[in-house]
């Protein structure tokens, strides 16, 4: 699965932040360094490159950043409903019908809801080392 070069964003931001030595952003204890990267991907991953993604780039990132939708999941109805809401309340222009269909198809295919039940397991980044982690030998501490 090919993805858009987000690393470019990181590089550009790193460059623009680089001159801020001694700023608040630079002050971090060792355990915060990872979380402190101001433009990590937030855990949402990159925009999936697939048919329709070029239309999403073209139509959906002028007003808000891509994380606005990368972190969301929805059916075709949900995604189309969001477009209608942005058009009604937030000044989004009408889309050509075929373009809108392709955008909705793309989002529903690659950002579809999954049934999470009433409570998920804790996120991987909140988990301790696992002595029984799959793929590790018996007795390993997992890290």
């Amino acid at each position, binding site marked *: 699965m090919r993805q858009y070069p*987000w690393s470019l964003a990181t590089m550009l931001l790193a460059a623009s932040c680089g001159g801020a030595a001694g700023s608040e952003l630079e002050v971090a204890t060792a355990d915060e360094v990872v979380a402190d990267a101001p433009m990590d991907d937030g855990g949402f991953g990159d925009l999936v490159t697939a048919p329709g993604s070029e239309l999403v780039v073209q139509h959906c990132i002028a007003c808000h950043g891509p994380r606005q939708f990368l972190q969301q999941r929805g059916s075709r109805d949900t995604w189309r409903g969001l477009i209608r809401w942005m058009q009604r309340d937030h000044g989004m222009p009408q889309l050509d019908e075929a373009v809108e269909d392709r955008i909705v198809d793309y989002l529903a295919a690659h950002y579809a809801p999954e049934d999470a039940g*009433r409570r998920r397991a804790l996120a991987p980044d*909140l988990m301790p080392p696992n002595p029984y982690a799959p793929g590790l030998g018996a007795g390993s501490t997992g890290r």
Partner: protein
Amino acid sequence: MAAAIGAPIVFGDRLPAGVVPLALSGGQDPRPLAGKRGLRVLNDRPINAETPAHLLDDDVTPAARLFVRNNGHPPALADIDVAKWTLEVGGECVREARTFSLAELKERFASHTYQLTIECAGNGRSEFSPPATGHQWTTGAVGCPRWTGVRLRDVLEECGVRDDAVYVGYYGADTHLSGDPGKDPISRGVPMQKALEDETLLAFAMNGEDLPLLNGHPLRLVCGGWPASTSGKWLQKIVVRDRVHDGAKMTGKAYRVPERPVAPGSKVPDEDMRIIEAMPVKSLVTFPKSGATLETGAEHEVRGHAWVGDGRIDAVHVSVDFGSTWQVAAVEPPPNRLAWQRWRARIRLPKDGYYEVWARATDDQGRSQPMVVPGWNPKGYLNNACHRIAVLAQS
């Protein structure tokens, strides 16, 4: 630019100067989280970021650890002239519309300081299934700094409020994502009763310093215990209304939940939605950090905060065996009304293995936190399910 992505970005002229669209990132400020440390960025345009639970361990939330939630773009620091900042007070139910400079507010009215909890109504949204649209907050859109300001009540009394006043609404200097100056990104408020409470402040300082830019500098409303969206930032205008305020994000489904419980995934018409007022009882485990390794058999302190919108926390219980047994935690009184309360407990993990520490707070009306995600609602608000952290016990 167009060559890089093969087609022009529609409405690319709305992109703030300096943003590189292909990077799909950036914002109005090259350091969009200036003054913040350790926050997880949910969105960079508009900037939204939450605080990991273990970084909320302080009794009083430091400015660097307070979450950032925006519906629009904050004003640029360079565009804020504190000496010229004014607050306009108007609306149908004000007897005398007035405009105060920031200096006048500070001189004419007594200053008060309270520690007040503010929590985004969508904190915890990421756990709802089917998923709700909007920023997918986990647990970190909450904080409890010490705010200093003048009472909204004192200012309203000076202007005079008619008896038929129903609601107070706010307007701020943030701008709509579309760039349309005719649109407000957000303009919410509270009923008169909440507006006139002692603790409802027009705040100009946090923890003894100017407000951070991202949290409303130089002036904001603070309505502790209610959805943080009622605490308008970059405050320029207060209106006293003869009806429920109808500004941006007051109507439709925004900051509303169904007036009666609904099954997950229901389509609820707007007229059956009601405005969220006080936030529900909730707690966090802020120590240890989830993922820690603890010594088997030894005694360990676990601690955190508990809060509830308009009331007080009576008890916190902690479980290390998935809710099979619970032990009572010690709960400190709040420093003042509407502040979160510190809780502490000592746990022992009897043998090596994987444990989760669950915390469950109970308020002064006997309401406590559910173990699973509470009632589904279309916009994913008010998830006050118990907080869980995971630890490994190792000999």
